[in-house]
């Protein structure tokens, strides 16, 4: 977010009093941004909740088309990635950039793993004629409820938007990993890592809700 030097005390921007002042401001900005993320996904969750309460049977039919084991594995993958992300910050706080770097790399790899599983799931669905909304192949799927497409409309929107966030998160982690490797961070200055970490945890947090709601509740 700001220019910095590799070693020692981080120089804060001219309009802040101190590095601590800048850090707390950055942190507040980040949390405000997280609120917007929560509210944006929140809109989808509201739509989900409303239609779930209107068409409970249709939703349970939809969930039965999903393989909960895939979602389960992905949940574990993301939780682990959250841990490695947290450790990435932890080791930066401890002035151990090497360890921090490898933890960040592990986070990216876990993110890739998540996406691969997601890709397998998506292609499996497409293979069985399951597309969102009105593109759902009625002849192939032969659903009990005629509006099953709505469930998969929500499914693809929610997981799709989440997937986009995973990709954005991974590139951001890549950016801080490079900077960690170059030794830009230390126990006095690690704001970007912390910020990216908060973003990544939000991505994890959303998945924590998506998994039971889409795969299990039915």
């Amino acid at each position: 977010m700001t220019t910095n030097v590799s070693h020692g005390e981080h120089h804060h921007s001219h309009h802040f009093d101190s590095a601590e002042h800048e850090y707390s401001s950055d942190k507040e900005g980040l949390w405000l941004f997280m609120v917007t993320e929560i509210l944006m996904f929140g809109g989808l969750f509201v739509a989900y909740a409303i239609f779930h309460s209107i068409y409970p049977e249709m939703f349970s039919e939809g969930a039965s088309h999903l393989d909960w084991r895939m979602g389960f594995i992905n949940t574990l993958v993301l939780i682990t990635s959250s841990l490695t992300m947290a450790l990435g910050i932890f080791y930066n706080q401890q002035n151990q950039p090497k360890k921090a770097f490898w933890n960040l790399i592990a986070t990216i790899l876990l993110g890739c793993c998540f996406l691969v599983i997601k890709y397998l799931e998506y292609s499996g669905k497409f293979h069985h004629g399951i597309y969102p909304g009105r593109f759902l192949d009625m002849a192939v799927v032969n659903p009990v409820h005629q509006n099953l497409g709505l469930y998969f409309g929500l499914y693809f929107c929610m997981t799709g938007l989440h997937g986009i966030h995973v990709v954005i998160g991974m590139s951001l982690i890549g950016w801080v990993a490079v900077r960690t490797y170059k030794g830009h961070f230390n126990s006095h200055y690690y704001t970007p890592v912390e910020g990216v970490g908060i973003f990544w945890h939000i991505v994890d947090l959303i998945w924590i809700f998506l998994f039971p709601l889409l795969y299990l509740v039915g």
Partner: protein
Amino acid sequence: MSQHHVIPFKTYMKVAAALVALTFLTVICHELHLGPLAGPVAFLIAAVKAALVLLYFMHLKYDNMQNRVIFGSGLIFLLLLIGFSALDIWTRVQSMSTL
């Protein structure tokens, strides 16, 4: 900046273990087929997991009040959105064609 609270390594591990355990618990609950309770139970477990991530991984437990209020307000407004939309949808009088 050195006065920032650093959460010990052990805590991170404990939280991660709890998260994994709770994930298993969700699946077990699913297999038990709790019927109408399934939804609320799954949501409750997810909420506990989310709280763990927020408090420890995202350091909200050691953050200042301002940031906690900011995050909380997001949830409050979300509740308003769902509350009023759902109120409308559940209190509509459904009319039918008589033809």
